[in-house]
């Protein structure tokens, strides 16, 4: 990762709102100038008191001081409001962009990054970046503007003081700068260690039933303690780093005070400085402390946010290995699926080995084989969720690599093995948040797959703990309804009826039969009874085609592999 890339990421984000940020800077400048008026008023009071003044005049100046203080606080609140609104605009844009990007990444990416970690990276990291834009930059920018204002104010009193102030500010800045990059690495570290912690917790919560029923609470707790304990030196290290930075502010302020006192002692005697001016300089150094402390308070946030921005940048730079750059669309209607010399491996592990097949258009093909024989991979290849290491997969004579993504998704559908429900309504879960789908279509799809129960409670009923609960089998039916809505030309059923009992399966088979009518389909099944109505059967073993042909013919050949499997499972079809 190259240095400075996180600033590029951040710039990319704020560019559309650049003018709004400029407006914010102007309001911030006004808010930073107001606090300078107070010490100027006090200088006047002190010098006039030494020269002789009236109680009434002092009261007048005291009142002015009060009004300025109130105006100054009001300006601070205005800045807070504007900056928060703006930062959240930008951050929410980034969250959407990241979510879209992550959804577009390969299955392999999702295999190795659990949802808990992705939540942390898409939400937690972006929140850090948004804090930087909305709060941290305002605090730090405000401190810088305040110092600039002070330089101007003392220059008006005496240009030599102005020069001294610039030198002081320069030295101060020199002391305050530094050790940023080391802190940056540590912040990245801390992010990573926290992502690991929350990933661990999320995983254990998901597996809670498994851990409970195995009496393995001690094991789970030990894992948590280990991760928490690994994080301790990193968390403490980051804060100690921050104290070092804080100590630098203290050095700057303390040396400022001492410098004011010493130069006051040197210069008041020579009538260069009035006591009132010495007091003004003293108040300025005091005034500096708060913004500097706040800026230092926020400095870890800069580190944290830079670390987060690096990670956001890394995530955005991660490219899907499967690129959809084609624009072809196969002719309408049922499509034949063809495999030409298709092989697939995960590194050393060969999953599919030189597959050559044509699945005829409009026909259904059952795929059987032991676990690990490559059934699921074969179906993922057709959906282009994974890319063949060698060979070509085509539908309707067009290589799927040449087909536009929206077209491919429109033409090929999947009913997966495991269905994850989404927090939302029945409608959200069937239409996947697509508002343009009419209620009537959703009701029709639900009725078609036998989920009348959900129709009765209404499509706007929430799914899950707050509304209707769904069993694993019903979730499977719901996934079927999703496909039903889309009317695809090729359907992949990946053990779609695995979690359904035989009674429900019979109902479901009818719905599936109806769905597959006139469509090309790949039906992966453990239960051979599922394949009673398919046209063709493909038997896979260790990534190779063992048998492929018309189901009726294979059933009739007693020496064939399929017939043997059938004999073994004969009882199943009873």
């Amino acid at each position, binding site marked *: 990762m190259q240095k400075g890339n996180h600033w590029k990421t951040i710039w990319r984000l704020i560019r559309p709102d650049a003018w709004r940020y400029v407006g914010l800077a102007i309001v911030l400048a006004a808010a930073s100038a107001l606090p300078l008026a*107070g010490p100027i008023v006090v200088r006047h009071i002190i010098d006039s008191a*030494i020269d002789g003044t009236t109680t009434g005049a002092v009261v007048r100046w*005291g009142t002015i*001081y*009060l009004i300025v203080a109130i105006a*100054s606080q009001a300006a601070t609140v205005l800045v807070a409001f504007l900056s928060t609104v703006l930062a959240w605009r930008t951050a*929410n844009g980034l969250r*959407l962009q990241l979510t879209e990007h*992550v*959804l577009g990444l390969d299955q392999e990416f999702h295999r190795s990054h659990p*949802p808990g*970690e992705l939540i942390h990276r898409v*939400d937690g990291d972006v929140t850090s970046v948004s804090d930087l834009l909305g709060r941290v930059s305002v605090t730090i920018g405000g401190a810088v503007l305040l110092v600039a204002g002070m330089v101007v104010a003392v220059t008006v009193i005496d240009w030599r003081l102005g020069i001294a102030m610039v030198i002081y500010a320069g030295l101060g800045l020199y002391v305050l700068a530094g050790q940023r990059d080391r802190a940056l690495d540590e912040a990245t570290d801390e992010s990573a260690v926290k992502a690991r912690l929350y990933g661990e917790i*999320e*995983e254990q*919560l*998901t597996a809670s*039933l498994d851990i*409970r*029923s*195995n*009496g393995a*609470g001690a*094991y789970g707790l030990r894992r*948590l*303690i*280990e991760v*928490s*304990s690994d994080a*301790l030196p990193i*968390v403490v290290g980051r804060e*100690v780093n921050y*104290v070092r930075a*804080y100590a630098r502010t203290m*050095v700057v302020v*303390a040396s400022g*005070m*001492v410098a004011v006192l010493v130069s006051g*002692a*040197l210069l*008041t005697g020579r009538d260069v400085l009035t006591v009132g001016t*010495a007091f003004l300089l003293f108040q300025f150094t005091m005034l500096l402390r708060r913004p500097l402390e706040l800026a230092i308070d926020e400095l870890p946030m800069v580190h944290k946010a830079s670390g987060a921005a690096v990670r956001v940048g890394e995530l955005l730079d991660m490219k899907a290995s499967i690129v959809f750059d084609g624009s072809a669309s196969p002719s309408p209607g049922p499509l034949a699926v063809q495999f030409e010399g298709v092989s697939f491996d995960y590194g050393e*592990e060969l999953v599919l080995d030189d597959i050559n097949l044509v699945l005829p258009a409009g026909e259904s093909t059952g795929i059987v084989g032991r*676990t*690990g024989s490559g059934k699921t991979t074969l179906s993922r290849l057709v959906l282009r*969720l994974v890319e063949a290491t060698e060979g070509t997969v085509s539908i309707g004579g067009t290589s799927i690599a040449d087909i536009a993504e929206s077209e491919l998704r429109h033409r090929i559908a999947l009913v997966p093995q495991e*269905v994850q429900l989404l*927090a939302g309504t029945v409608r959200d879960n069937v239409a*996947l*948040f697509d*508002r343009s789908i009419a209620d009537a279509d959703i009701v029709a799809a639900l009725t078609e797959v036998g989920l009348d129960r959900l129709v009765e409670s209404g499509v706007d009923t929430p799914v899950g703990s707050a509304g209707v609960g769904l*069993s694993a089998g*019903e979730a499977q039916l719901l996934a079927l309804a999703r496909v039903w809505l889309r009317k695809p030309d090729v359907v992949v059923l990946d053990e779609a009826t*695995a979690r359904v*009992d035989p009674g429900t399966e019979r109902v479901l088979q009818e719905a599936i039969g109806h769905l597959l009518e006139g469509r090309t389909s790949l039906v992966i099944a*453990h*239960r051979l009874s599922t394949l009673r109505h398919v046209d063709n059967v493909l038997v896979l073993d260790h990534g190779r085609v063992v048998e492929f042909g018309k189901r009726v013919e294979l059933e009739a050949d007693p020496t064939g592999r399929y017939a043997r*499997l059938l004999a073994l499972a004969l009882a*199943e079809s*009873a």
Partner: protein
Amino acid sequence: MMNVWRLSWNAATFRSKDYFLAFFYFLIFFMVPALDGVLIGRAFDSLTNGEPERVYTIAGVLLVTETIHMISIYFAVRYFVKAFWLIDSMLRANMLAAQIASGGDDAAESVASSGEAITHFRDDPEDVTHFLDSWIDVSAGTVFAIVAVTILGGVNAGATVALVIPMAAVFIVTWLLDTRIQQFRAADRKATVAVTGALGDVFASATSIKVNGATKPTLRHLSGLFDIRRGTAVRDRVLEDGLLAFARGSSEYSFAITIIVAAGAIASGRFDTGDFAIFAVFLTYLGFLPRMVGRMMARREQARVAFDGMSELVAGGDREKLVVHRFLPFEDPSLLPSRVLPVRTPLRSLRVESLAARFDGGGGVENVSFELRPGTLTVVTGVVGAGKSTLLRTLLGLESNAETSGAVFWNDEVILDRAAFFIPPQAAYLPQVPNLISDTFHANIGLGAGSMAEIEHALVLAALSDDLEQMPAGTQTMVGPRGLRLSGGQRQRLAAARAFVHRPELIVLDDLSSALDIETEVELWTNLAAAGATVLAVSHRQVAFERADQIIELSDGLRT
């Protein structure tokens, strides 16, 4: 009525030594400015009177006091960061322990969504330690305030008394906005939970969303949730910052009031530049106190919301359980006791009497009774929604979301805490959809117990040995997050091995076949029979029925 103060105190005393050392160093850090104020006042007096030598001496002393100032903050931070991380970790450990405990008083109902629950682990503990942080600030600030007010009173009693006005104003405003802050905070939390929950669901369903071409509508849905959260966040932030600005401004108002009240003394020269300096220094720090009290009030509300949120994860929503001081050796996790298996109670008979589980929304099981003997296979069957899985979970004491009744007898002895009893080596359970941990095969099977030989044996029983031979790292192969590096069938068989490893008296299988092909399933049944296992299984396959000693058919939750 929950006592946030006492709960937080219990949390703080988990690490008393670190917490109180942090307080001690903070106190030093706060008292140095009291000395500085007096010194600077003297310096300005000397400046006005034209005594430069005294000014140089004071400047030298200031350098020393400021050095002490720096050293004290360094140690204070070291101790409090450590204390707070460990307190956070304790809160997380107590929540997680409740979520993964097998029965007993500490076991809580499982959360519905782990994505939503994660915010209770991520943000809530920090809100509690932020509150504890405020305690240190306020108590050290109070000691400073007493000293400062005594000194200021000696300089100008009238102006010092007048300081009550801005200070009281900060208290009152904070008090009035207290409830609002809490409401805004809760709304913001809710919006955040909705966002993280939705993101978790979306990432878990990434493939479905992709193949259904539903990315755009999904993003639109998320965008709506993001916008709601932006609204709640802006409200929360502006109110908090407004309050803070007012509290911080109080030192400015105080200074203005001092000038007005002491105007006569100033004009006559009795209130001199040195007095201005002492007031200026002390008021800056005195302004800290109402601000910190204001912040503490706000944080008390945040801590209350946090305790509320976290209590959803512990048994009976009992907040006391969040702050139980558990043995958590963070400095050396190896001191943690390893998992110990309970003593084996050989099974002679298992009797289930009138077992029932009723869900609020209807459904469940009703009045199921049966008995089973060692070495037999009992198959539970029925249509979807008949309550098969519920029956198994109720028997094992894992059904926390339903109202349950009935009794289970092990060797004629009634088992009261079934979740605590039905664990290996008494019983092992293989859920319909097993969940794995991102660790090795070895760790996932043994879950912190079990010898190599036992694990090898379980691998053979679960028909997993052949798969492992193809993996170079063998049982040390990582399974990936949630076991996603494995195929569905491998996950199922790994979970089966996990159920077999401690040779349980009773094996409870919920639909073993759903992710297995017929050949593998036959192999598993054969292996179990050969091992003489006692099995209670949900199935609708003939291979299971053929081997069954008894078949229980459920329909609408009733045995038929």
